[in-house]
Every structure is written in structure tokens, then in C-alpha cells.
């Protein structure tokens, strides 16, 4: 039991790492990773939705009729997304503004619905939480990593939390000119594509 629990948790961190191994849920990955801070914030919001929707779907898996299951999952997910929206508005207002419509759009993130359908609907609540937490943390770290690459190259700074950069290239090299392309829209596609290529070089097992 404990062993399989650990397995379900760790698979999200490497073997099934969401945006890289399972190429799903790319919209927030591309849109909110201008800074590390936004990437991590989006990841945490998604993790919250993932864990609680997995838990509820798993608890109700014997009650929900098979024919209308997708509609039921969507309502469950939408409920938790609304809760996240309120929490972000109350406790992290700048982040709420920066993420904009991408918070309500967690509803249509394929990863969340995918986990509900492929895992939570067939497993016990404890396993479903482990799965949601693993995938969620993997997603958060991936968003953070993409944000790190884009922000560092595109703006020369690293912002983890609170809007003030913890590192600034101009303090090291006074004449530093950032590669602005990386924080523009096209840079998002190129950065993700190249990072995917690097991941492909490393075998998954």
C-alpha cells in the first residue's frame, strides 16, 4: 500500500511530468510563464484544484452514473476553480491580476479532467490525492522551470515571490541587455519546444 502510494506520487514528478511527458494543458504553460512567480502561482492554483477534484471524484466514483460522468466531473472541477479564484483574489491579488482569465480557464485544463477520468474515477480517495499531488507538484515545478528560463533570458531577472526580483543581471553586468524575444509570445513556443527537446534527450526510465 505505502509502496504503491509512493509510486503514484512520484510518477507525476518524472515519468508522467505533465507538460513535458504528457503534452497536455499547454495554454497556461505558454501564457503565464513570463516570470517564475506567475508560473509557480498558476501551478499552485492548479494543484489545489487537481487534489480536491481528484478527492471528490474518487469519493463519488460509485455514485456518479457512467453516462453523465464527464458533466459531473466538470461541475466538480468548476466548483473548486471558483474557490481558487476567490482565494487568489483575497490573498494574492497581484497574482490574481497577472494570471487574469487563466484562473477560470483551469476548468478546461486537460490535465485536471484527464486525471479525474483516467485515475480518480477508478481508485480510492487516498490514492487519488497522492496522484493529484504528484501531478500537481510536477506541473508547478515545470511551470517554474519554464518561467526561470524565459525570465532569466528575456528580462535578466529571477522573481520567486512578491514582485521583487531576488536576482538581477544588471547588478552583475551593468551593461546587460536582455534577450527580450523570450518573454514575448513567440518566445514562449520556442522556449517550450527547446526544453522539450532537452527532455527528450533524457530517457524517461
Amino acid at each position, binding site marked *: 500500500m505505502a509502496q504503491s502510494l509512493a509510486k503514484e506520487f512520484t510518477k507525476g514528478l518524472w515519468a508522467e511530468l505533465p507538460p513535458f511527458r504528457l*503534452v*497536455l*494543458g*499547454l*495554454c*497556461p504553460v*505558454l*501564457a503565464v510563464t513570463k516570470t517564475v512567480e506567475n508560473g509557480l502561482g498558476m501551478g499552485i492554483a492548479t494543484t489545489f484544484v487537481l487534489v480536491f477534484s481528484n478527492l471528490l471524484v474518487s469519493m463519488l466514483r460509485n455514485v456518479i452514473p457512467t453516462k453523465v460522468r*464527464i*458533466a459531473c466531473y*466538470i*461541475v466538480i472541477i*468548476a*466548483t473548486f*476553480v*471558483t474557490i481558487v*479564484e*476567490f482565494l487568489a483574489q483575497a490573498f494574492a491579488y497581484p497574482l490574481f491580476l497577472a494570471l*487574469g*482569465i487563466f484562473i*477560470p*480557464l483551469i*476548468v*478546461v*485544463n*486537460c490535465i485536471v*479532467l484527464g486525471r479525474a477520468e483516467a485515475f480518480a474515477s477508478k481508485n480510492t480517495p487516498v490514492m487519488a490525492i497522492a496522484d493529484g499531488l504528484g501531478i500537481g507538484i510536477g506541473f508547478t515545478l515545470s511551470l517554474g522551470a519554464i518561467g526561470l528560463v524565459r525570465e532569466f533570458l528575456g528580462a535578466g531577472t529571477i522573481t520567486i515571490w512578491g514582485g521583487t526580483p531576488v536576482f538581477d543581471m544588471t547588478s552583475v553586468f551593468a551593461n546587460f541587455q536582455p534577450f527580450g524575444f523570450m518573454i*514575448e*509570445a*513567440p*518566445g*514562449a*513556443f*520556442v522556449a*517550450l*519546444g*527547446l526544453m*522539450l*527537446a*532537452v527532455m*527528450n*534527450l533524457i530517457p524517461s526510465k
Partner: protein
Amino acid sequence: MEYFELAIGCIFINNILLAQFLGNCPFLGTSKKMETAVGMSMAVVFVMVMAGIFTWTVDTYLLKGLGVEYLRTVSFILVIASLVQFVEMFLKKSIPGLYAGLGIFLPLITTNCAVMGACLLNISKEYSFMQALAASFFYAIGFGLALILFAGVRERINLARVPKALQDTSIGLVTAGMIALTFTAFKGMV
């Protein structure tokens, strides 16, 4: 003139795929063949316009009327999901030819964030009914344009020798970046 500016803005400058990053899963998923790209684009035009009309009406008269805007996320996704279901049943019954063409793309649209994203953008920009209708249509045209262009490029890439690590999605994303770069040339037109 106002609608012309809206058209240029929605199709080129704020292209829903390449500048707003909405609907990227079907963008990568259905762009391997020209046929599927055309089918998906048609389905999106159809559903996005319908969804734009319905969500605007629901938001203005129901949610704002009752003062329950916080139910926006839940109600929009339900409107879109049931709309897709109805469209599917309607087409199957009355226009079988179109149904066969759109086929598997219709159910996929429920989780296409471009549709929901366009509806949310209409609301957040406080468009009037006609503006929301036009914007939904132009966003959908922009989606189709980007998807079909991308599918064309991707069919060519299949013939090229791509390094092993870059194959498939990876080179697809880099290509999408290049197409997005050409679209940024429209910035500042309106």
C-alpha cells in the same frame, strides 16, 4: 470601421492561438494533417459563435441580473458543454454531411480553452451584444487561419530530416513560435 478594427485586432494582432495562447492542445493535436485542421477550424467557428451569443446573454441577463457573477465559471462551462452536446445531436439528425465532416472534433471542443477563453474575453472587455458576436466570429477565424497555416508548414516538416530529440511536438512548438513571430508584425496596425 469599428468592426473592421475589431476584425484586424481579433484575427491578427490578438490572435487567439498565437498571442493569447488559448486552445493550444487542439492546435498541436489536430495540425498533423490538413484535413483534420480544416475540420477542427470549421467546428470551432461554429461553436465559438454560438457560445459567444449564449454566454453573453446568460452573463448579461441572468448572472448580472441576479447579482451572482461569481457563478460565471461554472455557468459558462455548463453552457458550452450542453451547447456542444445539442449541436452534435442537431447536426447528426439534420445535416449528416456536416456531422460526418466535423465528427470527432465536436466533443473535443468542450475542453478547448479557446472557446471558453473567447467568451471570458468578451465579458472582460465589456462588449455589446453585436461586438461580442463579431469578436467571437473573428477570434474563430483567427484560430482557423493559424491552425491551417500551421498544418501546412507541419506537412512540409514531415518530409524534412529533423534531429531525433526535436521530433514531433518539439519541432512543432518551435515552428509555432516562428509563425507567432510573423503575426507580431501586425502589432500597431490598429
